[in-house]
C-alpha cells in the first residue's frame, strides 16, 4: 500500500480486442531503479506510456489501477492527470532525433516548459537550464542553448533530453530505451550519466530496455515481460545468479557471450515459448470469463 508507484491489474488492449498488456502488477519503491525487459512488442514501452497518460490513440485501458502520489492516475480527469504527471514525472524518450522539436532552439525548449506549464519565473528557468546542461556535462552551454536540435549530435541531444527530464525535479522518470538509438561508446557514457543523475536526485527510475547487460549495470530490480505479461519480477542480484522462470533462463542463455565471440547464438527453445504461450492463453480465457 505504501509503495511509491503501484500498478495493479493493468490491462490494455488494441481497439480490435487484442490484448497488449495482461493484468500487470508492479511496485516501485522511492528511489528504486527498475528495469523493464522483454522482446520487441512485449509491451515494455506501453507500461511507461500508460503511466504518463500518453498511450497511442488505438490503445485503450480495460481495467487496472496506477497509484502514484496517492492518487489512482486512471481515475483522474485529463486536466488533473496532466498536472500531476507534468509536475511529478518525466520521460526520457527513445529516439533523440525526433524527441526534440526541430523548430525551437534548445534553450527555449527546456525553459518554456518550466515557464508555461509549471509557472516558473523565466529567469529561474533560464539559470536552471544552465545548471542542468552543466550537470549533464555539456561544454559550451551558451552555444548549445542557441542551437537547433539538428545542429547537435545524437549523444548531445540525448544529454539534453536527460537534462530536460530532470528539469522540474520529477520524482519518477521513465526512460524508454534511452540508449537504443546511440552507438556503443556513447551508450556507455549516457548510461553512466543517467545513473549519476538518478543517484544525485534520488529519482525513482523505470528503465525500459531490451538489453540485459544494461539492466545489470543500472538497475536494482527488474520485471521480465513477455507478450504483455510479467513473467518474472525480481532483484537484479538474484536474477543473474538464478532466474526462476524457464523463459528468463532461456533469455539469459540467449544473451551473446562477449568472452567467446565465436559461440553460436542460442534462441529461446520452442518448448519454453509454447508453455509460456499456453500459460498466457489460459490467463486470457480466465480474464475474458471474469468480464
Amino acid at each position, binding site marked *: 500500500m505504501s509503495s511509491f508507484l503501484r500498478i495493479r491489474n493493468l490491462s490494455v488492449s488494441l481497439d480490435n480486442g487484442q490484448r497488449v498488456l495482461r493484468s500487470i502488477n508492479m511496485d516501485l519503491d522511492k528511489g528504486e531503479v527498475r528495469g523493464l525487459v522483454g522482446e520487441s512488442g512485449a509491451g515494455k514501452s506501453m507500461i511507461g*506510456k500508460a503511466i*504518463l*497518460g*500518453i498511450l497511442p*490513440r488505438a490503445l485503450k485501458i480495460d481495467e487496472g489501477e496506477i497509484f502514484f502520489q496517492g492518487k489512482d492516475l486512471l481515475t483522474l480527469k485529463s486536466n488533473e492527470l*496532466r*498536472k500531476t*504527471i*507534468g*509536475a511529478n*514525472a*518525466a*520521460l526520457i*524518450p*527513445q*529516439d533523440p532525433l*525526433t*524527441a*526534440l*522539436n*526541430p*523548430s*525551437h532552439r534548445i534553450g527555449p525548449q527546456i525553459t*518554456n*516548459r518550466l515557464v*508555461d*506549464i*509549471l509557472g516558473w519565473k523565466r529567469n529561474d528557468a533560464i539559470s536552471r537550464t544552465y545548471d542542468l546542461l552543466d550537470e549533464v556535462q555539456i*561544454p*559550451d552551454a551558451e*552555444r*548549445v542553448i542557441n*542551437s*537547433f536540435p*539538428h*545542429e*547537435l*549530435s545524437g549523444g*548531445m541531444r540525448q544529454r539534453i*533530453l536527460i537534462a*530536460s527530464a530532470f528539469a522540474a525535479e520529477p520524482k519518477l522518470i521513465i526512460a524508454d530505451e534511452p540508449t537504443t538509438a546511440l552507438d556503443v561508446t556513447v551508450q556507455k557514457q549516457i548510461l553512466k550519466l543517467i545513473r549519476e543523475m538518478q543517484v544525485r536526485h534520488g529519482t525513482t527510475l523505470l528503465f525500459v530496455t531490451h538489453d540485459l547487460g544494461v539492466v545489470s549495470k543500472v538497475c536494482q530490480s527488474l520485471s521480465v515481460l513477455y507478450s504483455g505479461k510479467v513473467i518474472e519480477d525480481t532483484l537484479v542480484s538474484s536474477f543473474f545468479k538464478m532466474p526462476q522462470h524457464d523463459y528468463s533462463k532461456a533469455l539469459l542463455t540467449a544473451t551473446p557471450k562477449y568472452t567467446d565471440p565465436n559461440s553460436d547464438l542460442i534462441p529461446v527453445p520452442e518448448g519454453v515459448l509454447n508453455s509460456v504461450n499456453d500459460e498466457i492463453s489460459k490467463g486470457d480465457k480466465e480474464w475474458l470469463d471474469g468480464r
Partner: protein
Amino acid sequence: MVDNHRYMKRKFGMRMWLSGGWLVFLIAVTLMAPILSPHDPLAQDLFASRLPPFWMDGAEPGYYLGSDSLGRDVLSRILYGARVALVVALIASTATCAIGTILGIISGYFGGWVDMIVSRLVDIWMAFPPVLFAILLIAVLGTGLTSIIIAIIVIDWTRFCRVIRAETMSQGAMDYVSSAKAAGRPKFGIMIVEILPNVLPTIVVLLTLEMGIAVIVEAILSFVNLSISTDFPTWGGMISEGRTSVHQAWWVIVFPLITLFLTVLSFSQLGEGLKDRFDPVLR
C-alpha cells in the same frame, strides 16, 4: 558537436530575387497606378482604337502598349487590373489559408470523430468541379469583389485542410509531441507551440501557391464576365475582350496574359524559395 551547417550562409537565390522583385514591382505600380497610367483606363476613344504598341508602325505617343477596339489604353488597364488581382490574391488566399490550416491542425491532431467529420466534409467538397462551383456561387451571391473572394475561400479551403491535416498527423506521431504531452502541455498548447512551427514551411508554400491560384480564378471569372462589373478593368476581362480581335490587335490579349503568367509564376516560385528559409533543418 555543433556542426558548421548553421554558419554556412544560404544564398538568397536568383529565383527569390526575380519572383520577389516582380511582385514588389507589381505592388508598387499598382499603388501608383493613378500617377503612372498615361490614360484613364475606362476612357474610350474610337478614333484611337486598335493602336499598336510603341515600337510598331502607326503607334501613337502615349499608348505604350497599344489600345483595344474601343480605344482604351492597354497599359493603363493592366495597371488598374492589377489592383483587383492583388487584392483578391492577398485577401482570399490569407483567409483560405487561415480556415484550412485551423481545421487541418485540429482534425489532424484530435483524430477520432472530429477528424472523421472534417475529412468527410472535405471529400464531399472536393467532389464538386471547382470552377463550376465558383460560377454557381457567384450566380447566387451576385458579382462583385467580395463575392469573388468568398467564392475562392469556399472552393479552396479544402486544399489547405487536406495537406495540413496530413502534415499534422505525421508531426503528431513524433516523440517531441508525446514528451510535451507528458510534460503537461495542454492540447491547444501542443498544437500551437509544438506542431504549428513545424508545419509552417508547408503553410507558406501553400499560401503563395494559393495567391497564384486566386489570381487565376479571378481571371477565369472575369473571363466569363462573372467578376466585378465590366466598367472596372480586370486581366481576365481584358483577355476575354482581346480574344475577339486577336487577329487584328494581338497586343490586347498578349500583354495581360504575360502579366498574369509572370505574376502566378512569381507567387509559386516565391513560395518554394520561402519554404527553404522557413524550414529549420534547411535554414
